[in-house]
């Protein structure tokens, strides 16, 4: 890890503490981002799972929407999981009309497309370039319904992409922060290191 590199975790709502615990475990410095000042202190950003409608509203009221969008456009590495992936997607279906996204990743996602909580599940995935299966937890997960030409698919589940990357933007429809396997966070940290 480059000295002084700090990963921000958007902490408006959701599983931000779980992401920080993983970053801690792999020796990455992290801090919570709730205001524009907090954002100035970080080199990369994790958008956690939670409720994307709530986060979209709080991004506006906390005056974070424009500055986060600008940082991502300027190349700040970002990892979005579940609701965080929705915030990064170019198109969102079954969202609220006033729901905004950063449109930083050329994918289309459908909210809650894997069903309600009784349909939430865990399963094993194979991740490109990695031998061991990855245990993945899907919670009321969004489904990727379209991927652009520049989007690299790193993992699929039942023929649908679930882990994707394009330039310095990475997104998962599942929750790598809820298991002990930290390979996806390590992959993100590698990306942060090469970007700097």
């Amino acid at each position, binding site marked *: 890890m480059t000295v002084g590199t700090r990963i921000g975790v958007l902490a408006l709502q*959701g*599983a*931000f503490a779980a992401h920080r615990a993983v970053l801690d475990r792999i020796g990455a410095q992290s801090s919570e981002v709730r205001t524009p000042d907090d954002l100035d202190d970080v080199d990369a950003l994790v958008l956690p799972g939670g*409720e994307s409608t*709530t986060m979209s509203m*709080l991004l506006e009221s906390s005056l974070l929407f424009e500055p986060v969008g600008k940082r991502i456009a300027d190349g700040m590495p970002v990892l979005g999981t579940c609701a965080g992936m929705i915030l990064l997607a170019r198109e969102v279906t079954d969202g609220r009309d006033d729901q905004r996204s950063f449109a930083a990743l050329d994918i289309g996602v459908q909210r809650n497309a894997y069903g309600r909580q009784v349909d939430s599940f865990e*399963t094993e995935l194979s991740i490109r370039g990695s031998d061991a299966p990855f245990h993945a*937890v899907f919670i009321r997960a969004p489904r990727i319904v379209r991927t652009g030409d520049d989007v690299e698919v790193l993992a699929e589940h039942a023929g649908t992409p679930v882990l994707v990357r394009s330039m310095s933007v990475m997104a998962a429809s599942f929750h790598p922060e809820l*298991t002990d396997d930290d390979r996806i966070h390590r992959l993100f940290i590698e990306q942060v290191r090469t970007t700097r």
Partner: protein
Amino acid sequence: MASPNTTGSMRVQRGLAEMLKGGVIMDVVTPGQAKIAEDAGAVAVMALERVPADIRRDGGVARMSDPEMIEGIKAAVSIPVMAKARIGHFVEAQVLEALGVDFIDESEVLTPADEAHHIDKLKFTVPFVCGATNLGEALRRISEGAALIRSKGEAGTGNIVEAVRHLRSIIGDIRKITQADSAELFDWAKKLNAPLPLVQEIAETGWLQVPLFCAGGIATPADAALAMQLGAESVFVGSGIFKSDDPAPRAKAIVEATTHFRDAHIIAKVSRKLGAPMTGISMDEINQRYAERGW
């Protein structure tokens, strides 16, 4: 890879509780109120027939809501929908699971159906939240399969004092257990009337096995921030929103105060011009303490 999907595991159940952290779950009695709650940034709604303040006023037996009304609320919003079952009423819970609600609250606000047994929550796919007044109660509910614990507080009063007492008791005992030596943990388990392995796990991790939220008496943005600063990880607001003068702006203000709970300037800003909060009642004015239901 053809790997089977596992639903309803403890990890999947606790996972949804994790996603609700830092948020506000609002009691609603109509699809219209559910829309207002979602518009204000609620992370979930609790669908029920009467808010606790009305249950307190009207008396009678309070039961699970009409499935039709729960369906209406599910159709109105895209956020998770919770609903309440009576303590020990496992058939109400089966019905709620069949309706596809996202979380069941085995709630002391409804009239208990069993005087000795809570629901065996390990048998369900849907996650459960249960109330607790102290750590022993919280651990007994976790051992029965609760995926989320909330303080009971005193629902329908608009008075935060009981929730503060419960949070301080739960979190204070967690703090003491992390300082205890291994021999003392046996005594803690006995004193709390809780399973020893769960007590030992707390000593090791320093926290509950599941998230801890606050419920019971939140009426203002400052109340929500108080609960969060005391260590709650999210808040439930029952009567506090829709029994106030102007629910929509109050709901949004409570959401913002919950996110920015350590920033007094933001709490001050969002607390302006909200109209009157619910009137509320003090503890010596009430004749039925819901927090005493359950054990």
